[in-house]
């Protein structure tokens, strides 16, 4: 949806009138009004909400260093997902993964950059988990291992190659080596979302894990959207939908209306995959205590929780801004739900992955300290590829050529950026844990963190740097009030 000159002019005209009336013109809001007046449609937005308070920067990891002269490379940074009910597990070498970003919402060169970067990391001994997002997987993701190609008929394989050819040609990437492309050395989790965008059952069967997406932080209670301008012929073919028409997923799985339906769905997928691969349930952070309790009872191996600022390729502006709670705020009710559950159940391998506003080692460490086992990073990888954060992913004007537009993304350079980003973040994480005297990243604890403001202390249950906490702060406020009342002649 390009910003027509007319819309911009109309906005300025409105702003002038508002100013002349003696009010402050909110330009962002007036732009949305001008858009609505122009087309009568709900305005979209992308990436994460402009949350005024995400708490991360109010938290300090006590005495930890991201940069150290000492070598902490023996600190264990691995994460295992699965094994609670699944026969197989996913073992990754970093506690962070690539959050779901689908082909369609980001363009092919960006998908291929991530594919190559993760392969290169795997060759260097760092296995990183990739999530496909809700728009289906690309051929080399589904058929990237030899085992997955074993039972393919010649005609099927030819049709896959043909489609791959078309994809590469359309993006002027013919020089890419097909054998190299059809090698996937990293684990892949596929999303099972309310819009069932895949045509090939191998999508589920060849995956290393399945994530049932109930909601995402950017648009909780709202289905996925891919604006029509981004549904090219090839994206449409890959998803099995009509080209140039917006792809709207239902706001809910039409067969999951409550907890017992989720149980049925998890068991259905377990039967389908012979109880082998891990099953994850993803929700946005909202009524998170209740939702976590339900996930814990649902035979899932892992929960993914996505905070308010979790990104998206497109969401209605108001839904993105106004629905869902912040990542840090969700962690306390999540801990409560998990603790309450395990009061009456034996400990098992349930894992928690948290997304939303997390993009560097410190924030990963803070999230893990507050109870997560791992985190997902989305926007961070876009930045590594050159994203400028103009938040126009829902349109076709991406200046970096990641989500839209005809700008060409340099695949090699982007892959290198992602490679370095992950490598350096892993070292930083090990430095943090090592400088705290820990052998494992997961051993970073709440006692390692302190806060500098009252609200963050209330929400996270963390103490201030001087050892006081929100209770003692409020107590002294109470004492001050009592004194003030006494001064006024009230005897208390």
């Amino acid at each position, binding site marked *: 949806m390009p910003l027509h000159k007319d819309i911009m002019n109309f906005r300025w005209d409105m702003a002038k009138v508002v100013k002349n009336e003696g009010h402050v013109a909110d330009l962002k809001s007036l732009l949305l*009004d001008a858009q609505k007046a122009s087309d009568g449609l709900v305005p979209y937005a992308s990436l994460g909400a402009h949350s*005024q308070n995400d708490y991360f*920067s109010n938290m300090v990891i006590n005495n930890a260093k991201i940069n150290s002269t000492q070598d902490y490379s023996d600190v264990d940074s691995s994460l295992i997902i699965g094994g609670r009910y699944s026969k197989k597990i996913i073992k990754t070498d970093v506690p962070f993964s690539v959050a779901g970003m689908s082909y369609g919402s980001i363009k092919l060169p960006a998908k291929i950059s991530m594919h190559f970067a993760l392969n290169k990391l795997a060759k260097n001994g760092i296995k990183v988990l990739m999530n496909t997002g809700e728009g289906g997987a690309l051929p080399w993701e589904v058929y990237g291992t030899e085992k997955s190609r074993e039972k393919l008929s010649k005609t099927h394989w030819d049709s896959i190659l043909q489609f791959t050819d078309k994809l590469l040609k359309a993006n002027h990437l013919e020089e890419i080596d097909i054998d190299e492309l059809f090698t996937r050395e990293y684990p892949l989790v596929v999303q099972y979302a309310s819009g069932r965008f895949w045509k090939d059952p191998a999508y589920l069967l060849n995956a290393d894990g399945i994530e049932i997406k109930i909601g995402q932080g950017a648009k*909780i*209670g709202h289905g996925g959207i891919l604006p029509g301008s981004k549904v090219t012929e090839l994206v449409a073919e890959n998803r099995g939908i009509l080209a140039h028409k917006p792809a709207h997923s239902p706001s809910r799985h039409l067969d999951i209306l409550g907890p017992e339906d989720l149980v049925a769905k998890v068991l259905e997928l377990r039967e389908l995959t012979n109880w082998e691969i891990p099953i994850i349930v993803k929700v946005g952070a909202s009524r998170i205590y*209740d939702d976590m309790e*339900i996930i814990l009872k649902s035979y899932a191996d892992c929960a993914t929780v996505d905070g308010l600022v979790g990104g998206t390729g497109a969401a209605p502006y108001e*839904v993105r801004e106004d629905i869902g709670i912040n990542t840090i705020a969700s962690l306390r009710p999540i801990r409560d739900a998990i603790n309450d559950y395990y009061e009456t159940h034996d400990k098992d391998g349930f894992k928690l992955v948290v997304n939303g506003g997390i993009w560097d080692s410190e924030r990963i460490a803070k999230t893990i300290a507050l109870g997560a086992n791992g985190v997902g990073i989305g926007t961070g990888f876009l930045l590594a590829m050159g994203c400028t954060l103009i938040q126009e992913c829902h349109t076709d004007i991406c200046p970096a050529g990641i989500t839209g537009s005809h700008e060409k993304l340099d695949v090699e350079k982007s892959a290198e950026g992602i490679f370095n980003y992950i490598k350096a973040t892993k070292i930083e994480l090990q430095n943090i844990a090592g400088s705290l005297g820990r052998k494992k990243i997961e051993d970073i604890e709440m006692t390692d963190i302190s806060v500098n403001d009252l609200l963050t202390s209330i929400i996270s249950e963390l103490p201030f740097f001087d050892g006081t906490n929100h209770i003692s702060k409020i107590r002294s406020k109470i004492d001050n009030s009592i004194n003030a009342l006494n001064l006024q002649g009230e005897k208390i």
Partner: protein
Amino acid sequence: MRLNEKAVIRKSILELCNTGLPRKESTDDVIRTIREKSRSEKEGNLWEYIVALGAQLSRPPFDPYREKIKLATKIGRKGDQKISLKIPILIYGEFDLSQSSKDALNLALNNLDDNRSTVGLISRDEPCDERKYPHFQILDDVSKLADPDGIVLEYAGVKTEEKIEKIRKEFDGPIIVEVDEYFSYYTGNLLELGVDGILVNTDNITKSEKYDGKHAIAVIHDARLAINEFYRGKENDGACLVVAGDVNNAGKMVKAAGLGADVIGYDTSLLIARVGHHSENFFDEEITAQKIFNHMIATKSELTGIPAAIGYSDFHNLSPSDFRTSSIKASVQGNIPLEGVDKTYRNIVEEILEEHINTKNISVNQQEKQKIINLVMEGEN
């Protein structure tokens, strides 16, 4: 993320990407410094610190493509005099409109009615004859009753109450009273007199001394309390709360509805009408009407989409329990629970006070407790 923090984050990630080595400096430390610098500034717009809880597993969301989400409402407490709105919006605001702007607005409102998207209009003007939408006429001391569908009176002390009694004898449609900042003292009286709705203009009221430093949410919260107080022990016969002022986008409207607004007084349509006239490039009555129409239809979609995502098939079912805040100030002013702890700041202080006086063996009675809590609350404003 905030706008000014984006650059910091981007720079930091690019450093990692270019070097593949740990950074020199913690980025959260840099952001914290930026925030501490801006902390002395007034906490921005509190609307931005309020979020709704979306529906997922513990309750499924509705889907506006599949289920019809109800927006319609009625104004009026007696059965045969109710006015129906398909969208709970009354166009209302301070903009001075020329005749052509008014014509464009009239055309747009009629088209909206044809589209089953009726909204109402509050205006000082005499109602148009060929209107299809409800017109609420603002009656001041000089204006004459000109056969409107409803009446709006501005509260001006006891004489307003006398006026209401007088008007009731010749007019049986809904009467809405626009109140000033002292509404909590007399809302009960007005409702006792049979007034059908209370209109609060948050822009005006927050400028008053009584609401100095407070936000629109405090006004809406207090106005809803005043109306609820009237209904204590009786069955609610539907006196409505009309909220105008700082509620000029769908997000704010949804939050206002959660805090207790039944109908929104909305001025953006007037702004569009006004701009349509003032801009040489755009002025055309029909184009302006189309813009007003489009804008309202888009707003309607937003107003159905958000409640559906929260799990409601009716806009009017939004309640305070569906909202959380990430600001202590917003929690104090709107009595909204803090995110993650699901208690209001007041609840938290009450709990700590209770424990504090037990351990310290201080004897205070209920009244004194409230005084202490109120003083702590004031400190956060």
